[in-house]
Each structure stands twice: as structure tokens, then as C-alpha cells.
């Protein structure tokens, strides 16, 4: 097979085809689709409870061209283990991939993820991280960023939004000494292609952590998902790196750090944030920047107060329909 090094080398044939039921602009669907097409037809897909279960296959229809299975929420690491064991016994050399959400990975699925990682199962585990339990209607997960509104971290009179910082799941997985861990963003496609390609070639447990914008959950406009993902990287909210056989490497570094307010102001989930909260988030980002890039942010960003800009339609996925 041709080695994929850039977007133009990516196969044209989709394995997760159009016609599925995701919201327009869904970053989750775009990421799953692109990973599936790069993994190709010789793949078995397991999806735990998540948006992908609902929009990808609803009996008697399916958007999957590859074999597909769903059973429950917390067992991606375990079911993929079983599928791979069966294929190995049957001498079938196919890729087994589990595509779970952040809830199914960071929270309820953590035990099975850790089990599979520790056993170094020969599977790819993809975490499609939209930073909350979106399939059940935007409840906080341990992937939800500081300050974000969700239905279980509402903007109340006393407490406004999520008070905890995002769990560093990729580091937790990397600490299992697995062959490959990488973070991905749909806005950085060359990097995305290279990492999926590498994950496909490596043997053993591989973990791809993807930031996937959610239109209704983030309260964003459907056309803005990719640019928001780019801003996530530019502000330090997301870092693109990989850990190959224990060696960490940053794969893309923004020239300068963009103030986090640029990222926040495009999303309704952050619009209530106080200046103090933005300062706290910015301080956390500066520390993270230093931890990942080994240096202070080159131009320590100013902190801007909350803004009152009104979004066009507050992330309603059915807007205009």
C-alpha cells in the first residue's frame, strides 16, 4: 500500500460513509471517518456507547463498510481484546480498532482501557474527545475543560461551570509503556495522517487521542469546528505530540501562544467565564505549555475580560433546517 504522508495520499474510499446521522459539522464524525478510511477495509471496528453508536448504525441501516460491533459503554479495551484474539486464532491479519468517546475512555472505560494497555493488546484505541458526555446531552466528563458549561456543571448563581481541569489521559496511557500514543487534531491534517499511518503500522497497543469539536455541546457554529481546533492548539488547550516506545516528541508547535480568549470566545460553553476564571485557565495553560514545549510561552498572553459577543445560533445543530 502507498505510504500516506499527506492528505493527497489518503484513500478516497470511505469506510464510514455519508448518510450517517451526525450533526452537520460534527468533529467526531469527521475524525472517525478519516481514521476509518486510512485504516482501510481490512479492519474491524468496535464502538461503545457514544454518539457514533447512534449516528453510525441504527438497525437496519449502517454507514460502516467494515465489520462493526457495539455492546456497552465501558468495555472498548476488553471487546477489542477479544476480537483481536479471535482474528489471531483464525490467522486473519486485520486491524482491530475501538472508537470510544471521552466518557467511555476517561471515565467509565478507564479500567478496560488500562487492562488492554497493560497487556499490550494488538489493537488501536481511538478516543474521540468532545469533552463531555455528548450523546446523553452534554454532561461533564473528566475530559471537560476548566470553566466549561455543561448540564451537570451549569452556570449557577454560586458556581459557574466546571471547576476541575481536564484529565491528562494520553499521559496515563503512555505510562503503561505502550508502543504508541499520539494526540490528533482534525485541523492539522498532515500531522493527523502521519499519526494514523504510524498507528496502523505499529504492533501492540496504540492510543490515538483526538480532539473533536461538538456543535451543540460546545455551542459553536457548524462551520467553525476546524478553526476552533486550530485555535485549541495555538492557545495550548491542545498539544500535538506522540510518545513512541516511551520517547515523547512534540509534532507541531505554534510559533507563538495565542491568548486563550481567542479560543473561548467562539464557544457558547465558555461565554459566562469571569476574568478571574480566564486568568486561572491561562495560568494552567502557561504551565502546560512549559511542560510540553520545555520553555515559557514566548509572548505571555494578556488576559481579556469576558465578552458579550452573541453567537449566530448558539450551536443548534438543526439551525437553518
Amino acid at each position: 500500500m502507498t505510504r500516506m504522508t499527506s492528505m493527497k495520499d489518503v484513500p478516497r474510499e470511505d469506510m464510514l460513509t455519508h448518510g450517517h446521522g451526525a450533526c452537520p459539522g460534527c468533529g467526531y464524525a469527521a475524525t472517525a471517518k478519516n481514521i476509518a478510511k486510512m485504516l482501510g477495509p481490512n479492519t474491524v471496528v468496535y464502538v461503545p456507547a457514544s454518539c457514533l453508536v447512534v449516528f453510525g448504525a441504527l438497525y437496519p441501516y449502517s454507514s460502516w463498510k467494515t465489520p462493526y460491533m457495539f455492546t456497552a459503554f465501558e468495555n472498548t479495551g476488553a471487546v477489542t481484546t477479544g476480537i483481536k484474539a479471535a482474528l489471531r486464532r483464525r490467522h486473519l491479519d486485520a486491524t482491530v480498532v475501538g472508537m470510544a468517546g471521552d466518557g467511555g475512555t476517561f471515565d467509565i472505560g478507564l479500567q478496560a482501557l488500562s487492562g488492554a494497555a497493560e497487556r499490550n493488546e494488538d489493537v488501536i484505541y481511538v478516543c474521540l474527545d468532545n469533552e463531555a458526555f455528548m450523546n446523553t446531552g452534554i454532561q461533564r466528563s473528566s475530559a471537560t475543560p476548566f470553566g466549561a458549561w455543561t448540564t451537570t456543571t451549569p452556570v449557577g448563581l454560586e458556581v459557574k461551570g466546571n471547576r476541575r481541569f481536564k484529565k491528562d489521559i494520553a499521559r496515563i496511557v503512555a505510562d503503561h509503556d505502550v508502543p504508541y500514543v499520539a494526540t490528533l487534531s482534525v485541523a492539522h491534517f498532515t500531522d493527523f495522517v502521519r499519526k494514523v499511518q504510524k498507528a496502523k503500522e505499529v504492533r501492540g497497543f496504540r492510543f490515538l487521542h483526538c480532539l473533536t469539536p461538538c456543535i451543540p455541546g460546545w455551542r459553536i457554529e457548524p462551520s467553525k469546528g476546524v478553526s476552533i481546533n486550530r485555535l485549541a492548539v495555538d492557545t495550548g488547550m491542545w498539544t500535538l505530540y506522540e510518545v513512541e516506545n516511551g520517547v515523547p516528541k512534540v509534532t507541531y508547535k505554534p510559533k507563538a501562544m495565542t491568548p486563550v480568549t481567542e479560543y473561548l470566545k467562539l464557544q457558547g460553553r465558555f461565554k459566562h467565564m469571569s476574568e478571574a476564571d480566564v486568568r486561572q485557565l491561562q495560568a494552567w495553560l502557561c504551565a502546560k505549555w512549559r511542560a510540553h514545549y520545555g520553555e515559557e510561552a514566548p509572548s505571555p498572553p494578556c488576559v481579556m475580560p469576558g465578552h458579550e459577543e452573541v453567537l449566530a445560533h448558539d450551536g443548534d445543530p438543526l439551525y437553518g433546517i
Partner: protein
Amino acid sequence: MAVKTITGDQAVAYGAMLARAEVVPGFPITPQTVIIEQISEFINDGLMDADFIPAESEHSVMSVAVGASAGGVRTFTATSSQGLALMYEMLFAAAPTRLPVVMAVANRSLGAASGIWTEHNDSVPVRESGWLQVYVEDNQEALDMIIQAFRIAEDRRVMLPIMVCLDGFILSHVVEGVDIPEQAVVDRFLPRFAPVNVLDPRDPIMMNPVTPPEFATELRYQQDRAVEAARTVIGEADEEFAALTGRRYGGLFEAYRLEDAEFALIGLGTWAGIAREVVDQLRAEGKKAGLIKLRYMRPFPGQELRQATLNLKALGTFDRSAAFNGYGPVFTEVRNALYGSGITVTDHLAGIGGRDITAEMVRDMYGLVERSARGEKVRDCTWHALRGEME
């Protein structure tokens, strides 16, 4: 054939090896643990060609089993008590996905006021999970039923998972002489697994998609028909197994001295051994006692039991599960099956938390059933050998 003196857990492991199970996920839980230890030894000694997968919990054990079976290989596992409870969610994935996983359950009490000893309240409550359930009486039956279970589960008319339940410690840890069948004999009885639906990139299918109301009823109905079809398949498997090994277990249940009996008891598991002895004692005393060793809770042999109990005046059910505010599960199933037949049915609870069941206790049970057969009024539900006041 070779006779080995082995525990029930080891007998189960021999069964899995002879059945040529290929993937065995496992997690240690008393009193099941010896099963997965023994299988690990078989594999590491090169005697068994299988993958043992040490999962990090029983929930994951059943998830691995579901994945492996969906991937098209013969899959075996074992659990007990809290472990079965932790698997609960995934039991309901295996059955509707029609995956013929075989699982041994070493029966043990469940929940707080914890104990590790035998009780049926771990497996009996999951009888609505869509799994078939068979309960064995001795180590030989444990081994033989693992082999039969694969045959039944994988039959195209069935395609359902099955639990082989054995009383914890009473069987799991007690040694008995067990005939180990020749591999060739087992191979004749149990052909290679030929799954109907497999996750294979060469022929993509979707398994267990979200199913809307328009189709869910039909899916459940098909599952119901498959459980029903198992009644026939179980009988056929028992006969064919008997032809090869000389050991016949009676299919759905075994009737003992029932033909001319006026009263009888029915129950699950090792209790049947002592009950059989008590029946012999009662017969020697001229009393027309009988016994039904209930083997399957699913499929439940309702019609067959109705037929078998036509001449009885009274039937007692033995329940080794604590039942609150009423009757044990065996009673509920049996009385439901016999509703309208005019036979008095009473419930008898004993052996809770692994307490020994003595001949005297079983005689007490038969005593009550005999009295109700004579038309005397006896308590509907009796906790036997209770220390303290009944009322």
C-alpha cells in the same frame, strides 16, 4: 478413557480443554479460581491450544468473551458470585448477539453478609439474561456438561450462551473419580465451531446495532424461539453423548422413582444426591416418595414437568437461594408450570450461605410434602433447620 481423581473445578477445566476452547478470558474469584488456574497450566504445559487472557475484571472477562465469540472462535470462561454480578451487563450482550459462549459458574452466595460458600442466588437471578442454565450434581456431570454445553450452544437452532452451574466447594473443591473421555470421542461429539455470523473484514456485517422499536420485538421473539428450540437440542445431545460415553443425564431433568410416587421433591444441584438417598430410605419404609433433579432452569421444562407430575398429590420445591417475602425461584418456576394441575406445591429453603444439607433436613422436607399429599395444611414456604422461632 482414564479415571482421574480431581476437583469439580479441574473437571470443568478438562471439559474446556477437551472441547478445544480457543479463547479463555479469566479473572480469579473464589471458588471458581482453580478453573482458570488449571486452564492456564494446560496452556503453559502445551496440552491445550488456546489463548488465556487475564482480564482486569469480570466485566472485561465477559466483554473479551463476547469479542472473541463474535470473532468466530470457541470461547470459554468461568466465574462465581460477585464476579457474575459484575458481568451482569455483558450477559445481556452475549445472548441477544447469539454468541455461544460457555461459562462455568461455581455457585456461591452474593452480597453483603459475605460468604464464599455455595448458594444459588448468584446464577438463578440471571435466568432472564437469555443464557441457558444447567445445574450439575457431581464432578463427572460437570465435565460432561461443559462438552455438551458447547454442542447445545453452537447448534444452529440455538446459538445462545450457556452457564454450567456447579455448587461451590461441594463440587468445585472436592475430589472425585472422574472419567476423562478420549479426545477422539469428544471430537466425534463436538465438531469444530462453525459460527453463523462472524466479524470478518472479508464479509462485513454489523453486530448489535442500536435497534429501534420497529424491530426489537422480533429480535426478542427470535431469541425466545431459540431458547424454546434448546429443549429439543438438549435431549438430542444427551442421547448422543450417552451413545458415545454411556453416561445419560436425563436431558432437562432426571426423574427418580417417580413413576408410582405420590409425593416428590424437585430441586437443583448437589442436593439431589442426598435427596436420592432419602427417597430410598422412605421407599424402604413403604412410602411412595419420588425425586426430580431439575437440571435446566433455562429452558425451563414446564410442559415436561406437568406431564411427569400427573400422578403426584404433592410436590415440594427445594430452593438454595434466600427468597424474601415469599417463595424461592425454583418454587416460582415450578408452581407457574403446574398452575391448575391441582397438585399442592410447597417451598423448602435450605443450605443458605453454604450450610450443610443433612439427610435429616431432607427427611423433614419430605415429611412436610407427605403431609400435604395427605391433604394436611402445611406452611407454603419453610426455611429448614432455622435456628430460632419460625412464628
